[in-house]
């Protein structure tokens, strides 16, 4: 460590003074200094040390380790949790500058968590840590129950994870059983937990997976805004800190790395930062205007409203379509094309990158679950769909049918009770 805790605290104090002066409004903050291995672990387990076990988190861990080895996009080793008090981790081997920058970055996220509408409405920051602990305990209890055990729990988790985003992101069903299910029902998880052929503990596992997904949906829906906001604040705050020269140089290097944009991808830090910076100029530094936007928008509306022609052009945005061996550039950021690019991006961000699947009906005498896919020209990946349907079949117990379009023709994908998948024309 090339710094002391005292130094961190001193910098933190300066950062907090500046942040408050500029208008940031955040939950009480806690920083924990941890090792590289701990950091990987926290990241693999979505920040929750007490998270329930599943092999996918082990896979996550190994993948993160590889990612860090080869590719450092975004801010390395940053982990903030949407909770009250807000918890963030600092990796002990980072340089002083990286710690200072991360601290400033974290206050940006913290402010965002506390004030963005999605977080306020759909998550309960004060109960976050308790919730994850409670989930972990429940799942571990099932694993340890001799009549259930690891394999059976894994079977349900595998299946529930496959449809974790079909959790009725923005409807707020009260989970009273008395309420009659209405079709179409976008909350496939909830539906299965109520009507699937499941034991009580299995229903409980589904409820746990659903709750966790819903906790993460605001983060998915605001990835660009949130990262951009935090990046904008670390940039602004650190520039005002009056860093010694060596640190100042390192600051620019790190910041440039964070917003580094490689051709062929879209770095959310980069595009988010660019938009916020532009808004800052546009409002002449008026925090109130910016605060209003961070409070009520989500990525798709944020992009639709504030990604303008100049930004598209500056960032060389283009729209591409994948073909067998190459990508075809279908739009470039010129006067004619930029609006299409903006719209496509607005449709693709957050949950827009995932298909909408809903429960259309149940054919009672055949014990058959009928699902629909809201088709907007984008087709499902058949291999993934097939496997996912098998998982749904596991939870449902009977036959499962999905109505969708394949090769632009309306089709039914049918998963029978013995998990044979066939495709029929409608």
């Amino acid at each position, binding site marked *: 460590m090339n710094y002391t805790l005292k130094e961190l605290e001193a910098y933190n104090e300066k950062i907090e003074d500046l942040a408050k002066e500029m208008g940031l409004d955040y939950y009480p903050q806690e920083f924990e200094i941890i090792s590289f291995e701990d950091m990987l672990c926290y990241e693999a387990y979505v920040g929750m040390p007490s998270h329930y076990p599943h092999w996918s988190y082990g896979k996550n861990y190994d993948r993160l380790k590889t990612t860090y080895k080869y590719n450092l996009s975004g801010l390395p080793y940053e982990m903030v949790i949407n909770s009250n008090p807000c918890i963030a981790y600092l990796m002990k081997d980072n340089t002083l500058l990286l710690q200072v920058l991360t601290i400033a970055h974290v206050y940006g996220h913290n402010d965002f968590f506390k004030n963005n509408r999605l977080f306020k409405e759909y998550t309960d920051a004060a109960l976050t840590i308790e919730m994850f602990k409670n989930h972990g305990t429940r799942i571990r209890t099932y694993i340890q129950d001799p009549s259930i055990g690891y394999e059976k729990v894994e079977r349900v988790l595998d299946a529930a994870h496959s449809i974790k985003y079909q959790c009725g992101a923005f409807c707020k069903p009260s989970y009273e059983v008395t309420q009659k299910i209405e079709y179409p029902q976008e909350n496939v998880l909830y539906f299965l937990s109520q009507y699937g052929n499941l034991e009580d503990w299995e229903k409980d596992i589904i409820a746990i997976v659903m709750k966790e997904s819903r906790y993460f949906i605001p983060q*998915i829906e605001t990835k660009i805004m949130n990262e951009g906001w935090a990046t904008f604040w670390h940039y602004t705050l650190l520039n005002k800190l009056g860093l010694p020269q060596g640190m100042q140089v390192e600051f620019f290097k790190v910041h440039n790395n964070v917003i580094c944009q490689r051709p062929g991808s879209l770095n959310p830090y980069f595009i988010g930062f660019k938009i916020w910076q532009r808004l800052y100029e546009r409002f002449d530094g008026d925090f109130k205007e910016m605060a209003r936007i961070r409070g009520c928008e989500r990525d798709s509306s944020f992009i639709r409203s504030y990604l303008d022609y100049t930004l598209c052009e500056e960032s060389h*945005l283009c729209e591409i379509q994948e073909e067998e061996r190459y990508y075809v550039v279908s739009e470039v950021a010129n006067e004619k094309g930029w609006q299409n690019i903006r719209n496509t991006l607005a449709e693709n961000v957050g949950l827009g990158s995932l298909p909408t699947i809903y429960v259309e009906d149940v054919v009672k005498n055949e014990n058959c679950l009928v699902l629909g896919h809201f088709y907007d020209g984008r087709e499902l990946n058949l291999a993934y769909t097939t496997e996912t349907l098998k998982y749904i079949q596991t939870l449902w117990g009977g036959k499962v049918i999905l109505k969708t379009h394949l090769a632009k023709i309306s089709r039914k994908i049918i998963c029978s009770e013995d998990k044979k998948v066939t495709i029929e024309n409608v």
Partner: protein
Amino acid sequence: MGTIFREYKANNRDRSIEDRRRHKELVEKSIKENIGSIISEESIIGKSKNKKIKIPIKGLKEYYFKYGKNQKDVVAGSGQEEKGQKVPKGEYSKGTGENGAGSEEGEDIYETEVTIEEAIDFLFEDLNLPYLQHKKFNEIQTEYGSKRSGVREKGPRQRLSKKHTMVEKIKRQKQELKARAELGLEKEIERIPFHKEDLRYFYRRPKFKRDSNAVVICIMDTSGSMGQTKKYLARSFYFLLYQFLLIRYVNVEIVFIAHTTVAKEVSEQDFFHKGESGGTYISSGYQKALDIIEERYHPQNWNIYAFHCSDGDNWGEDNEEAVKLASQLCKTCNLFGYGEIKTSTYTSTIMNRYMEDIHAPNFTAVRILRKEDVWTAFVEMLKVEGKGAGREEG
């Protein structure tokens, strides 16, 4: 409430261990389940061990509903793009942005590629093959030349080492001077001549070379009745055999003999892809194998593995000759195997004859009906090898 900083506390508990272990276990399970279909696709020779092969791993991908075709993406380009331009995938390696909800869905590391060597390791891991006990079959010792190895007091005059002899003489000289000094004698002495005891000779040790050579002789019936499916099964089998020998021997060669009523040595490509019409004399293939062994692979230097794949439709008049030559092959080879590839379950005459008339411990006959049988047949065959059978040699 002020901001809290919590100091670093070493925490030796890694809670991911169990989940990582489980993940690894699932990966390996999946590889094992799929290996049969993978190896059938591989070309036998000329592939480096490090060549990556794709292994479809089920249950490891985290499946979910996602988009496939017709999806548009927005990316930042280089600024040089023009509408309608085609960009090679290599340039846009990460076409799909990192901004999606599936942000935790990167490509699975394990799902895609495993080297042939790793795959084979997975396969052979479970067999518990007693590799080392059978080393005598692996290595053949031959004497070739000799090597200097120190000096000795006796030897032929031609190998006299002047230097070592001189050293010995000087040693003796010094000793004598010392002794004289102790006894108080005068130091000056006349010249001390060489003595017989001073002479030293180079020693040459005979040198043995350990050869670790093996040759796989693939004999296949390419008559009209052997269709593509049957050849495909044969090919999988040869692939396993070849890979297996690669583990045990340093130098493995492979010979392909295709036969109908006559046999000839062919290339791998022709072996698996060229079909011929006509009848079947199995003996012709065996005779060719024996000829090639005679010519190029002397059993003293080579471990020979011959394996014959056929559907068993041998012409009756050839059976006697085939059995005779098969016995002969058993004598020259470490292992001689016969694999009958059939789509029906009845056993051919020739296979029955082999079972009855060949008693060599290193002979094995297996039957392969479906793709799944390849591996079982292979394991079956290895049991013969594992018993320690082999040609008799010192």
